[in-house]
């Protein structure tokens, strides 16, 4: 391991640990640091903490699941963004490039419109994300002319825009007193309602998808070479591309289904990770996961502590992400390839 890499990972992990500690320590319901330590210790040791059940509820049923969900969603979006940026050899690509977010949003908005239950809405979002990317991939594969990667991206843009129109139509039909606010909150992104039952449908797909991407991380280096060069290296680019798209879509759709639309994490964090550890995917992917999880956790901690009323995550990530991205662009040292 090179010293710079060691330093990069150490910084990322230290920041993550700090973010987790901070997230557990602060919130609208006051929990003293000593009580927090006792509760965490009782969780590890199995001894009763001797504190009121309400404080235990806050830490284990409210803050805990939320911290974990923020880590998972942030990591998922960052890993997917890194994979897609490599796959499409384009630094402006984000996880929703193939329509995963718009598809998930359409599914969720439809679920709210049909007054489905919470779990069904999440399922609809998840299915919507997968279906949208499936449709983009199917359409993209039938077009034989031109660069297949470019065709795929363009198809994603077009289908995403169509799905956006569908979202608009359903919002237009929605009951303005009840359904429309619910849709708006969902589309702005939030982890406000996260509880333990949300973790299972999030954890499974995120771990599965990330595992596939991690396993493919050495081959991704070759994938970011031009198509002919990758083929010359003996890589079967078609199936590999499909595997990356499926895995990245899976983690994106799971994250969007759990937390709503959160932009910018999947776009900005891969750049930050590249800044820290360089372009090699074998190092980039784990660093992006750690940074993404930590970043969204910090954002979510801010969202739930800034005031009694939640600030939507999508708003915060945009407000923080935009200037950061401009700074990255201005100070880029040609670190792309």
């Amino acid at each position, binding site marked *: 391991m090179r010293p710079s890499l060691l330093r990069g990972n150490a910084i990322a992990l230290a920041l993550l640990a700090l973010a987790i500690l901070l997230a557990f320590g602060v*919130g*609208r*319901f*006051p929990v003293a640091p000593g009580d927090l330590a006792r509760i965490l210790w009782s969780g590890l040791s199995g001894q009763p903490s001797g504190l009121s*059940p*309400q404080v235990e*509820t*806050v830490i284990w*049923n*409210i*803050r805990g699941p*939320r911290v974990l969900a923020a880590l998972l969603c942030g990591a998922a979006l960052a890993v997917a963004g890194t994979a897609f940026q490599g796959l499409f050899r384009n630094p402006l690509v984000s996880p929703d490039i193939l329509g995963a977010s718009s598809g998930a949003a359409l599914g969720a908005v439809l679920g709210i419109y049909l007054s489905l*239950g*919470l779990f069904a809405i999440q399922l609809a979002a998840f299915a919507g994300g997968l279906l949208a990317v499936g449709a983009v991939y199917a359409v993209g594969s039938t077009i034989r002319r031109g660069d297949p990667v470019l065709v795929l991206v363009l198809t994603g843009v077009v289908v995403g825009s169509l799905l956006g129109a569908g979202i608009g139509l359903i919002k*237009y*039909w929605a*009951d*303005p*007193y*009840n359904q429309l*606010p*619910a849709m708006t*909150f969902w589309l702005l992104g*939030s982890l*406000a*309602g996260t*509880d333990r039952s949300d973790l299972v449908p999030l954890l499974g797909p995120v771990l599965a998808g990330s595992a596939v991407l991690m396993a493919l991380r050495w081959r991704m280096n070759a994938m970011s070479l031009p198509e002919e060069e990758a083929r010359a290296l003996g890589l079967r680019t078609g199936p590999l591309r499909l595997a990356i798209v499926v895995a990245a879509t899976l983690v994106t759709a799971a994250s969007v289904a759990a937390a709503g639309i959160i932009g910018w994490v999947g776009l900005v964090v891969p750049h930050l990770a590249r800044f820290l550890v360089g372009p090699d995917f074998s190092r980039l992917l784990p660093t992006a996961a750690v940074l993404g999880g930590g970043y969204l956790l910090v954002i979510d901690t801010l969202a*739930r502590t800034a*005031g*009694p*009323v*939640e600030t*939507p995550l999508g708003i915060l990530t945009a407000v923080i992400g935009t200037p950061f991205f401009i700074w990255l662009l201005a100070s880029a040292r040609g670190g792309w390839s």
Partner: protein
Amino acid sequence: MPRPDRRALLTGLAALAAWRRPAWAATVRDGAGRDVAVPATVTRVFPAGPPAAIQLYTLAPDLLLGWPRANRPEEREFLLPGIGDRPEIGRITGRGNSANLEAVLQLKPDLIVDAGSTGRTYVELAERVQGQTGIPYALLDGRFSAIPESYRILGRLTGRSARAETLATWCETAMATIRGRIAGIAPEQRPSVYYARGPRGLETGLGGSINVETLSFLGARNVADQPGSGLAQVSLEQVLAWDPEVIVTIDLAFSESGRRDPAWAGVRAVKAGRVHLSPKIPFGWVDFPPSVNRMVGLWWLAKLLYPQAFPEDIRAIARDFHTLFYQVTPSEPQLDRILAGRG
């Protein structure tokens, strides 16, 4: 080519103008202070949105052209037959019209009425639609405390002043009675209330929002009394920190899950069994949609918040309200269903 007879042309144009412009009986000053010219007889009224449709239905159901959104069968049961099932005609809103103006014209309304904001956006929208269609467009102030006055204006607009006076007086009496009884209740005896919306119960109405007008009328301490006038999302942790004494919800799913969920069990209102699901057929009693239906909701809420001060039977009040305003008297089983908050 024969030259057009100028005199005939002018006569024709004058006739056309006369046909376009029926004899206006009067001008009525609407809720936004605009003078609206109203035809001598108004027989067809287009409601611009749900609050206007409900208010118009309660005053003059026969004039209602249709509903912004068709009523469901379980709602029609509580409305006059032949009127509760009138067709869906869309709504006219500030952002865009789901009711196409040509479709509005085809319904040949004598009058368009909107109840809600009387702010500049809505005044300009009304002026524009009125100019485009030639149909008088009146605005009613939709705020809760303005309901009696809105009835009187709507009565003058539709020539139903006598019934409008009856309904306005019912509302004024209810408001005065309730206000009088809670005036003597000390601030510390007024319960803190959390208004829960959404299936997780984590959407709420901020202090100035139309969604909690009845709560603020009753002097309840809304825990989410933040500056702002809309809905917002909060976390369960925040609700635990607020620890409200009473929870009022309009969401059936939350009213069931909130009472069982161990995470909510620490909230005082849940411990004390004070999670209340608001009735909602045919129209919601608290804010859904924010119209005159909130008048009976005011009694329901007053009894919840101050049981000692309001010994009246809510069944009797609901029956009277339905009979007078919706003109359908619900049966005992129907009253059970209304009060259970389902449907």
